[in-house]
């Protein structure tokens, strides 16, 4: 037996019943697409198409179309890659790490966050593939037999670790997401009144009927996948940071990179989840499931990770000074005051100063402020990667080869292409898949609804499972 905390807010408000939960979420899938959805979808298709024209032109003519030069040989491509991978960290973190910590508030947001993860990783994967210049040789980083060349791939290279890390992360996240979708597909199948709905959602649900035996296995699959995904999500951005940290470029060659990149990834991922969820919540009227409590908790994670990122920036400067290495010191002073000072200060303002506003309760419970700050954080995180990559390269060891990077239209439009891809996928998801995990929200319903909390009722819990 256990008395429910009187401090916490209920996770499901508005006196929703179990059937209301099914209705509120499933009918979004069942109803005809609204005009707003069609408009938004066409807009993202337009971005995809416009970006695609430039991308196609660049594939035909080569990556000389980008603004890269022989000093700055990595710029927007790898910046965008790291930015998208970083965004792709929140979903698995929410569903895996918060599942292990038994945080019930994850149930309302994990579905959309995981979808966002998968789409962001797809957008990230675009970059290394097109940066190869000859994307039809994309299988070359795979450990294939000698007949393809005379050598095996180099397992000492962090770039190869990245191939394994990103592809494992993508496929395991996809499976985790799909396993979560199965019971909800079954719900939509059972509600279907049309033969196509019955057939398609029936096939997607894999014949799920919710027997207690299956649930026992299902729960242990979810738990073990969470246990596997937790180190996986931490390993992915660690390995991405190794791309830089194992090199000998001043400004990259630092041991702080793995934890600092992981914190930054969670920071930007939660910001993107908030941006998307606030829109979805508004359009689909999900305020009973994604309550202010949910938004406040996500904002608290943003303060924590944003502060870790801020401390990491300062630590880097301290270490550059303390190491006594003049190249390192130059790299950092150049970051702050050199040609790219504006990018550095944009990063510091967006990432270090702006999330601190969430210490004020009024701001972290305000939808408008949260929405604006979530976008600012993602702008800041893009600048962080840009600053790390470009400022460390543009003034290298030989002053005669110092250069400045300016993006071309191809840089910009390839970035737009990934936005088009991301939003196209997200809008398709929001229309045809249940955006909230109905089965999991229902598990939280009995002991986290308005009635229980408002009356401080005692809940029977003989097996001590709450």
């Amino acid at each position: 037996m256990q008395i429910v905390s009187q401090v916490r807010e209920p996770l499901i408000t508005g006196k929703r019943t179990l059937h209301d939960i099914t209705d509120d979420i499933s009918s979004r899938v069942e109803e005809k697409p609204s005009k707003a959805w069609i408009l938004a979808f066409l807009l993202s298709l337009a971005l995809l198409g416009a970006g695609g024209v430039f991308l196609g032109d660049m594939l035909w003519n080569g990556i000389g179309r980008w603004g890269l030069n022989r000093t700055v040989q990595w710029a927007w491509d790898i910046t965008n890659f790291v930015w998208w991978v970083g965004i792709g960290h929140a979903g698995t973190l929410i569903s895996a790490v918060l599942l292990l910590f038994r945080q019930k508030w994850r149930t309302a947001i994990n579905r959309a966050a995981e979808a966002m993860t998968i789409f962001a990783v797809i957008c990230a994967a675009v970059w290394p593939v097109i940066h190869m210049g000859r994307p039809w040789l994309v299988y070359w980083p795979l450990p294939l037999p000698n007949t393809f060349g005379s050598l095996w791939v180099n397992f000492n290279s962090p770039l190869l670790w990245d191939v394994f890390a990103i592809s494992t992360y993508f496929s395991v996240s996809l499976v985790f997401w799909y396993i979560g979708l199965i019971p909800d597909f079954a719900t939509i199948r059972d509600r279907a009144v049309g033969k196509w709905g019955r057939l398609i959602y029936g096939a997607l649900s894999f014949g799920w009927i919710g027997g207690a035996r299956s649930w026992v296995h299902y729960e242990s699959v979810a738990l073990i996948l969470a246990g596997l995904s937790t180190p996986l999500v931490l390993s992915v951005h660690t390995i991405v940071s190794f791309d830089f940290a194992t090199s000998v470029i001043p400004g990259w060659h630092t041991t702080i990179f793995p934890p600092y990149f992981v914190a930054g990834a969670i920071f930007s991922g939660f910001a993107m989840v908030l941006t998307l969820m606030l829109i979805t919540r508004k359009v689909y009227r999900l305020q009973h499931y994604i309550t202010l409590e949910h938004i406040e908790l996500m904002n608290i994670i943003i303060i924590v990770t944003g502060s870790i990122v801020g401390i990491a920036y300062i630590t880097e400067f301290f270490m550059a000074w303390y190491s006594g290495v003049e190249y390192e010191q130059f790299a950092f002073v150049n970051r702050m005051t050199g040609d790219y000072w504006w990018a550095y200060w944009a990063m510091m303002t967006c990432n270090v100063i702006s999330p601190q506003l969430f210490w004020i309760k009024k701001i972290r419970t305000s939808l408008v402020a949260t929405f604006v700050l979530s976008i600012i954080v993602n702008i800041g995180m893009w600048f962080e990667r840009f600053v790390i990559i470009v400022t460390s390269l543009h003034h290298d060891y030989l002053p005669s080869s110092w250069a400045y990077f300016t993006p071309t239209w191809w840089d910009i439009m390839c970035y737009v292409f990934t936005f088009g891809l991301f939003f196209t996928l997200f809008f398709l998801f929001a229309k045809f898949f249940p955006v909230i995990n109905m089965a999991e929200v229902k598990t939280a319903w009995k002991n986290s609804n308005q009635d229980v909390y408002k009356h401080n009722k005692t809940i029977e819990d003989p097996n001590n499972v709450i």
Partner: protein
Amino acid sequence: MAATEAQKMELNKHFVVGVFDDEDTLADAITFVKEKGIKIHEVFTPYPIHGLEHKLGYKHSWLPTAAFLFGATGTTLALIMQIGMLGVDWPMIIGGKPFIAVPDFIPVTFEMTVLLAAFGMVGSFLVSQDMKPHKVPRIFDRRATDDKFIMAIDLAENTLGEEQLKEVLKEAGTEEGTEEHPAIFRKDFTDEENNPSFIGYVRKLFSEGVLANDTSRPVKS
């Protein structure tokens, strides 16, 4: 009591089904029904209910063990692959490191461990639960994926008759029920429904459409 041949033939065909509207009522009902010496075929719930498996006497899932074995296979394969390629088949000096640079092999080894563990476990789950896109599920009540908790009792597994079982279920606390959706009802499956063919299911679906009494969506008033 040993089941006769005739009884075995009737297994899995005739059921008495009770509909509950609360997870705790269902949990108590399971204890109540089992105390009467009745064998429960299965319960169907819209979401996982912890503690139910103890009441029903189900064992822990063996899938974590499968995940461990698949993961260990992944670790082994990854190490064999990397040591075999860079250490044995074509040794090369890279950055002055030894041919078999174990610390450098850890990231790929870790990723392959996770990959094989996850896919192996999920694959075992799908195969063992007979889950596949072309599965035609045998459904007692479609509301089991919405807001109802369904208990199915196989008549051939129990000595009590249909009416007595219905009586017990009523005592166990089934919901009120309506004319259209009774709280306790008998459900019979034919041999064909127990071993359905996917082609036949699709053909029937497209000739008849979805029947009005075969969906959990409430009829619009």
